[in-house]
């Protein structure tokens, strides 16, 4: 608790942020073509259209939430199936790998053509981008059980379901949180890329950036970037705090408080 109010905890990142903002302002002022918005311009833009940025954030957040959530549920269920039935893994893993090595940018427009210009393709793109890390981490997590503990449960004739709930699932939690930390920024990339290709209807922050780009509205671009960064930071913070609570028993979850 006291840690939150300590100067040596808060000061370094605040100073670093200050230096960054200063550098940004210097570049913006000295850059002749006016391709970079100044700090005041950016914040005026935010202050003058709070509604736009709020609504866009909500849309983007919704895409991240739905995409991430659906992807996780499907990936985890698939990982459970793969752990128990080897043939499922052999059949589907190559497909998952193929999906993963294909760049989002390449198939996002195709998905838009297929699913229309609404919000559906954005969910799908976001979900696909984070699917593989979720799948692999779930798989590794579910398998990373203590061999002796597994032996013990076997001698008790624990059912597969009991082994899953009482041993595999808790053992996999550190891996799932590690996956969440990787997938969160990835999902923001997915959502923004999807919006780039579907701009127009139901604008998210990515749509704001792409239409501002067309109108050469430089401050709007920078404002949207700032909001995206803030969004990503807040989401990451939520995951970290959740991890500390849930993984209090785990070395990674109980770092200095």
């Amino acid at each position, binding site marked *: 608790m006291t840690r939150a109010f300590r100067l040596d905890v808060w000061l370094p990142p605040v100073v670093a942020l200050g230096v960054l903002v200063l550098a940004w302002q210097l570049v913006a002022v000295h850059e002749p073509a006016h391709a970079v918005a100044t700090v005041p311009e950016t914040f005026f833009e935010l202050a003058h259209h709070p509604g736009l940025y709020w609504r866009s954030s909500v849309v983007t957040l919704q895409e991240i939430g739905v995409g991430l959530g659906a992807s996780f549920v499907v990936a985890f269920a698939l990982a459970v199936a793969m752990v128990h039935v080897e043939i499922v893994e052999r059949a589907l893993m190559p497909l998952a790998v193929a999906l993963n090595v294909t760049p989002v940018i390449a198939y996002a427009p195709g998905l838009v053509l297929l699913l229309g210009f609404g919000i559906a393709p954005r969910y799908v793109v976001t979900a696909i981008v984070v699917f593989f890390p979720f799948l692999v981490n779930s798989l590794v997590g579910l398998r990373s059980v*203590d061999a*002796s*503990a597994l*032996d*013990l*449960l*076997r*001698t*008790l*004739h*624990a*059912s597969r379901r*009991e082994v899953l709930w*009482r*041993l595999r699932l*808790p053992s996999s*939690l550190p891996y799932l949180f590690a996956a969440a930390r990787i997938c969160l920024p990835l999902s923001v990339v997915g959502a923004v890329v999807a919006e780039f290709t579907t701009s127009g209807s139901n604008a998210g922050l990515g749509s704001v950036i792409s239409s501002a780009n067309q109108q050469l509205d430089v401050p709007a671009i920078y404002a949207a970037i700032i909001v995206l960064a803030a969004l990503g930071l807040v989401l990451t913070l939520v995951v970290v705090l959740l991890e500390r609570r849930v993984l209090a*028993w*785990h*070395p990674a979850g109980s770092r200095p408080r």
Partner: protein
Amino acid sequence: MLRSVSKSYESGRGATLALDDVSLVVGRAQFVTIIGPSGCGKSTLLRIAAGLVRADSGEVSIFGEDPRVACANKHIGFVPQSPALLPWRTVLENVRLPLQVNRRATRGAPGDAGGLRDPADILAAFGLGEVLDKRPAQLSGGMQQRVAIARAFVFDPAVLLMDEPFSALDELTREVIRYELLDLWSTRRTTVLFVTHSVPEAVALSDAVVVMSPQPGRVSALVPVEIPRPRGELVELTEDFRAIERRVRLELRTAAGSGGRAPGRGEQ
């Protein structure tokens, strides 16, 4: 319990004969220790008795039941070499684990003479009454191992199979836990098959010491330990104890020396 059991492991360079025609009978309420050089198949023997590994040939029975059936009926208590405590559970929750899985087979009701006992009582009897709500990571190695033993006693299995449960502990802790285990055991009189590398440990605990020889794993001698119970730490100073200890050491030496090459074991 085991009659002419053989087991070999296939590996890249041919098969390793881990157990060759091993027979072993353990009477009810007996404490029998297996001792032998590393790699002589002690763990394999225990895992076969626990139903974790199938023997290639021979018969295994846990008081008339196939090991897998015995597991299904929760008649087997297994204490692995590492404590294997679940780090997200508290000490008390860890000890409750055997009661929570495979509930159908949990015998009796709390308070029944032969049935399960309150996990907190067992832990208290084992000197762990103060740490019920701690997590395993907060305990010393000795305490963790005590929790693992308490976990095996909690559902009152017919047979306890213990694979070098004290091998990770320092000598002093080992000696203390040894007699704590004997105390707990004397109140239950569970049948125990115990694997160890320590001769004094084997003699202090057991009714009989089984000496095994390596490559292939065979039973090379059975040394009865006729020292009256209850035994305390002082027992190790008696002449009887010393004599039996000397005999086990001698048998171990001959066992290690006679370990010929197994016919099935390919030379490189």
